[in-house]
């Protein structure tokens, strides 16, 4: 039971993120079909363009797949929530069946199934009918949003949330369909035509989602101080930054369509589209984590001040000496195990006047800072060597992935000091602790990644697809770091820790997708040279952020 409740947060964010992603793909595909893929051949004189029917068939196939995936995620979300509610409140299935999230889930499932059925019909028939279940999908999502639970201004907030989600789906959910469409053609004119139509649609969507987002931000964040002093505000700010990156990529695409050389335009459009989709999914995952955080406007106490942030972030000399094991509190593992067994780890909640986590002792803080700072040195070295390797002046620098071995060894020894080999608790006993187990798996993954990328860098791997593993993993890890938000109340230490995580996540997303673009863009695209320098710089900056990590 305790374990079930402990993983509830994880499952909730995972299913919510997947639901929002497939919702966007389903609705975005329908809008794309109606407004971009309409009668494509009518306006094209190029006989090599695929006909409308082929493009519509392709779009309908992906809409159907997205709708079915949405059904699966909705079922999983409703089942997980119901199971938890039945177990924790001793309810029957009949008791939970009337809950708002169940009704919303059923509406979402029924609508997505309708879309799947309609998209299976003859492609030549009108697709306008799909708009109705698409609107119902958005409505089901809004039913479980912050807006529905608000006490004041509920109706306008519901309307703005619906607009925000629909516009997001149209823009970000439509992007993969644009990619599918331009991948299926060799005709530059046809690709330009599709991009021009999608650009207009995207422009309107961006205006709508930005306007609705501004209103929602005003209602849920409320003040500038809340934008940086609370977890919710910081995540909204992160969304804004990623939104800016997406607009930048959109502008590059626009420039390509208007003035790019025809020999590389198609290939460049596809590659920028891939990066846009990846960053778009990152934004959606960030939005999913926002739904599980209380709005900043509701948390008026204990916000982190600018002075506290500056005090935390101010540059200081790194800590290169560690406290001894004897200086650490002896009861960390025992206390955590006891709390876990009793289920209190899962009962995270906020009660006025109640303290949150136990403050770290000075030795624990020193241990943590030492860990971060040495990890920072390793990551900074990785970035520096990668930059040297890119410049091609130091041949041995291409072995930079081997530096990750140092990180693996460091993690193995230092992440869980109470556990073997440093601590008194045996190897197998502590494998029952989920976090220790996770750290052990990380060690294996870091080693695997080091070997993998080293083989790529030294030319031992020929496959172009395998070279994409490293950038993809870095980008995905950055995205997932953004879903790792954890404070229900304004526990200052957790908000400050989150503020140090966010730059790491953004830099990881930037590093991953810039490396992706370096590998994928055609050689004549000038942006390729820029991103080739950008990703090692981002990795170096991650090292600098880690080196400047402090606890107070």
């Amino acid at each position, binding site marked *: 039971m305790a374990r079930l409740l402990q993983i509830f947060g994880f499952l909730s964010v995972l299913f919510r993120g997947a639901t929002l992603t497939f919702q966007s793909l389903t609705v975005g595909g329908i809008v794309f079909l109606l407004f971009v893929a309409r009668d494509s051949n009518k306006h094209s004189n190029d006989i090599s363009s695929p006909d409308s029917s082929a493009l519509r068939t392709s779009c309908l196939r992906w809409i159907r797949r997205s709708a079915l995936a949405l059904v699966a995620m909705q079922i999983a979300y409703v089942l997980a929530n119901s199971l938890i509610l039945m177990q924790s409140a001793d309810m029957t299935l009949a008791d939970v069946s009337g809950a708002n999230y169940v009704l919303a889930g059923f509406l979402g499932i029924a609508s997505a199934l309708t879309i799947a059925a309609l998209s299976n019909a003859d492609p030549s028939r009108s697709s306008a009918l799909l708009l109705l279940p698409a609107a119902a999908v958005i409505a089901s999502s809004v039913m479980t949003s912050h807006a529905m639970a608000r006490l004041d201004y509920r109706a306008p907030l519901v309307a703005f949330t619906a607009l925000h989600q629909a516009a997001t789906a149209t823009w970000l959910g439509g992007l993969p369909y644009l990619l599918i469409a331009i991948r299926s053609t060799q005709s530059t004119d046809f690709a330009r035509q599709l991009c021009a139509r999608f650009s207009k649609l995207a422009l309107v969507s961006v205006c709508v989602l930005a306007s609705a987002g501004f209103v929602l931000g005003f209602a849920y964040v409320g003040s500038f101080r809340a934008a940086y002093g609370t977890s919710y505000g910081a995540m909204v700010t992160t969304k804004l930054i990623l939104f800016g990156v997406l607009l930048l990529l959109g502008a590059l695409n626009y420039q390509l369509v208007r003035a790019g050389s025809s020999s590389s335009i198609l290939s460049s459009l596809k590659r920028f589209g891939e990066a846009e989709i990846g960053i778009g999914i990152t934004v959606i995952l960030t939005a999913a984590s926002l739904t599980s955080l209380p709005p900043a406007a509701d948390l008026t106490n204990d916000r982190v001040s600018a002075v506290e942030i500056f005090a935390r972030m101010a540059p200081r000399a790194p800590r290169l000496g560690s406290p001894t094991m004897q200086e650490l509190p002896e009861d960390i593992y025992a206390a955590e195990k006891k709390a876990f067994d009793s289920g209190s780890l899962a009962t995270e909640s906020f009660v*006025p006047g109640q303290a949150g986590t136990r403050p770290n002792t000075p030795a624990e*803080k020193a241990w943590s800072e030492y860990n*971060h700072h040495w990890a920072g040195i390793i990551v900074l070295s990785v970035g520096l060597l990668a930059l040297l390797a890119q410049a091609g002046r130091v041949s041995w620098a291409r072995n930079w992935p081997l530096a990750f071995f140092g990180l693996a060894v460091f993690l193995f020894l230092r992440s869980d000091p109470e556990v073997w080999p440093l601590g008194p608790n045996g190897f197998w006993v502590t494998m029952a602790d989920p976090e220790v187990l996770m750290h052990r798996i990380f060690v294996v993954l870091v080693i695997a990644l080091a070997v993998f990328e080293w083989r790529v860098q030294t030319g031992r791997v020929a496959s172009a697809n395998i070279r994409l593993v490293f950038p993809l993993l870095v980008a995905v890890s950055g995205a997932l770091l953004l*879903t790792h938000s954890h404070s229900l109340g304004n526990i200052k230490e957790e908000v400050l820790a989150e503020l140090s995580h966010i730059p790491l996540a953004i830099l990881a997303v930037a590093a991953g997708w810039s490396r992706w673009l370096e590998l994928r863009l055609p050689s004549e695209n000038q942006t390729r040279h820029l991103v080739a320098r950008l990703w090692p710089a981002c990795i170096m900056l991650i090292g600098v952020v880690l080196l400047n990590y402090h606890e107070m």
Partner: protein
Amino acid sequence: MYSVRRKCFTPILFVTAALLLLVASAAAHAVLLESSPSLNAAVAGPDVPIKLRFNVRIDASRSRFTLVRPDGTTTPLELAKDSPADTLSARASGLAPGDYRLRWQALASDGHITRGEIPFTVART
């Protein structure tokens, strides 16, 4: 809850991608704004009105109050049906002097569950 020291070590592993999901944790977003009795308060018995106010609408028919008595036994409390949308209320009757804990579980309109515990004391009169 795990110590902050260990949580903070996780982002160092920015290269390890998907399994980061498994340590992702998210709390529900219904936040308790005020409670009566308040945390660690001493109240007069034997009848104690209980009222919890949240930041969002709560599904009262699917929320729960459980009273933990000084001897460790538990009693479910019936929630009032006429409370405001953001409030859960009940009445604990016949409480002898001693230390009690109110365990609450609230279901927000969006399907998120929040749980918590409020220790309080029924004072001798």
